[in-house]
């Protein structure tokens, strides 16, 4: 059975989506989804073990060999991202029930969970596939379902947010398709490994350069790199709490993963960074993202929006790490991918708890919550500290590696910028801390109780994870370093 795991990883949630549609009963659907997500987590973990043991796994769908059929390729990066996505998915799902019951009309809950399953399918499918077109298909599955999930938010602005995301996302996907088309035109194949072998011979044609440009822009739209981020803040702000937690922790990460795949696998044999000055462009944009987004975040009154901007800044960190194109930088990017997923998930889950009890997540809503919802706020603070990069949290590990990568590349101004921008995080995180712990609760406030255990538990699992992986980062870092090594030196083996 273990040889079938790569297929099961994606097919299981896919298979359960229509079943969920037939069951309809919210409670049962929730349970089904819960079981599915935990199973996918188990599968992804065992896949990671396999990959760590025996190297890259390939799986031929339909039994057709690679360039003719579609192939699954799972290397360390992929397996790592799979674990991130499925772990976040299962925790968020555990958390979801109460939050969803409150935020989504009862008769639509089962549709919502169906969407969630599909979104999970899409994200997992993107991660595991070794075919550029298949990637597009799964990208669309995840995107379409996330548009719907976002638009189910309670505020009417959720609709426009989803609409804008739809437009931007589709433009991104179409750009991606143009890029794929251009590549296909010059090579005649869609398989990533095959493309990688054919690429060096034709790398200096203008078609391929244009293809690279289109792919990069398309993907950057999806991952909300700085000037292309406009869809993100509203989408994260007005989406239902659990959707924000899930998407913030996974969707942009998977988009980054696509970028890694394209740049380092498909164009692996070519030094793409030198062809188009891509390195400088990405680095500049990343640094801009770090500063601009953090600065905007400081001025937000809505905590969700604040952290949405912070997400944009953090994506900047990841891209910055990648743009060093050194092993350390790459590892920094990958590790931050993981770490940011953990901390953002913590924060947004925490905000979801606040929303459940207070009905809103503006700074004003948090006055005095430090004593009224101590566990929730403490978890948010842990996530916030991690965002700043305080030692003993995951954020510190990423920052350490980023700075190291910058220094290794002899770019000490960049290193200085990295630490400076993380200082901006102090300011916005501390706005929350002050509101929660130093402001008194409004006088006419109704009594607020802590959220139920089913929500606290996943929240604290995430919070503790962000401490644990900050203290013991050896395992994750070993994987990240290996993965970086493979990407830089081996392509798809």
């Amino acid at each position, binding site marked *: 059975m273990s040889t079938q795991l790569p297929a099961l990883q994606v097919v299981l949630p896919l*298979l359960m989506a229509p079943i969920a549609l037939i069951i309809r009963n919210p409670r049962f659907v929730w349970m089904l989804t819960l079981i599915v997500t935990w199973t996918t987590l188990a599968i992804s973990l065992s896949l990671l073990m396999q990959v760590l043991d025996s190297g890259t796994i390939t799986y031929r769908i339909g039994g057709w060999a690679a360039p003719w059929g579609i192939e699954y390729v799972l290397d360390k990066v992929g397996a790592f991202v799979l674990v991130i996505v499925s772990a976040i998915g299962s925790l968020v799902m555990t958390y979801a029930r109460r939050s969803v019951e409150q935020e989504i009309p009862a008769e639509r809950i089962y549709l919502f969970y169906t969407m969630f399953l599909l979104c999970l399918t899409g994200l997992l499918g993107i991660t595991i596939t070794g075919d550029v077109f298949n990637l597009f298909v799964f990208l669309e599955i995840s995107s379409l379902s996330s548009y719907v999930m976002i638009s189910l938010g309670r505020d009417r602005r959720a609709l426009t947010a989803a609409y804008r995301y739809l437009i931007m996302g589709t433009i991104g996907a179409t750009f991606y398709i143009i890029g794929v088309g251009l590549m296909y035109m010059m090579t005649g194949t869609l398989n990533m490994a095959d493309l990688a072998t054919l690429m060096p011979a034709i790398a200096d044609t203008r078609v391929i350069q244009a293809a690279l440009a289109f792919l990069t822009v398309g993907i950057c739209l999806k991952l909300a790199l700085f000037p292309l981020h406009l869809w993100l803040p509203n989408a994260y702000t007005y989406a239902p709490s659990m959707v924000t937690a899930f998407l913030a922790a996974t969707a942009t990460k998977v988009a980054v993963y696509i970028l890694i795949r394209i740049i380092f696998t498909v164009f692996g044999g070519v030094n793409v960074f030198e062809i188009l000055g891509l390195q400088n462009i990405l680095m500049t944009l990343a640094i801009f993202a770090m500063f601009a987004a953090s600065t905007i975040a400081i001025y937000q009154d809505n905590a969700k929006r604040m952290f949405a901007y912070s997400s944009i800044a953090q994506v900047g960190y990841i891209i910055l790490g990648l743009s060093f194109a050194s092993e350390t930088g790459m590892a920094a990017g990958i590790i931050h991918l993981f770490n940011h997923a953990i901390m953002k998930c913590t924060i947004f889950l925490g905000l979801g708890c606040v929303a459940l009890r207070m009905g809103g997540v503006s700074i004003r809503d948090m006055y005095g919550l430090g004593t009224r919802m101590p566990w929730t706020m403490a978890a948010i603070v842990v996530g916030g500290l991690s965002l700043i990069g305080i030692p003993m949290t995951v954020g510190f590990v990423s920052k350490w590696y980023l700075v190291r990568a910058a220094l290794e590349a002899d770019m000490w101004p960049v290193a200085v910028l990295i630490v400076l921008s993380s200082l901006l995080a102090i300011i916005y995180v501390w706005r929350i801390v002050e509101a929660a712990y130093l402001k008194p609760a409004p006088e006419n406030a109704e009594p607020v109780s802590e959220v139920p255990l089913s929500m606290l538990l996943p929240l604290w699992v995430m919070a503790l994870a962000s401490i644990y992986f900050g203290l013991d980062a050896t395992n994750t870092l070993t994987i990240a370093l290996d993965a970086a090594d493979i990407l830089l030196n081996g392509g798809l083996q």
Partner: protein
Amino acid sequence: MLNRASILRVVSKLLIPPIMVFALYVQFHGDFGPGGGFQAGVIFAAAFILYALIFGVDNARKVAPAWLTRTLLASGLLLYTGVGVVAMMLGGDFLDYSMLATDQKSAQHLGITLIELGVGTTVSGAMITIFLIFDGRLRAEKDD
């Protein structure tokens, strides 16, 4: 007002069955000529949409209540995935049709037919659902 549309009604009544047959033709003739599950699904849905256009969403809903379209929608996808999973259980890779029968060609043929059927079912279900919802919405709006 509807009386004036009697020509339409008669013509439609005459047309709808052939359209459905044509859909089936497209479905199963996909191996030899253009066409296949997707197109067939759309044509099938088109027949239905025609019905709904002429006789109203209410009547259409009677023919295809929500549970039916929902089941159509789900079962197609289930059928497709099911084929893959069965192939997997028989020891092949996911969607490896050659596991379905002993002879390579007939196995492939069986597999393709089945999944095309799945495609057709889901697509027709989806199109009908989407259409009915859009138009149902319309009436609901006007009532308010």
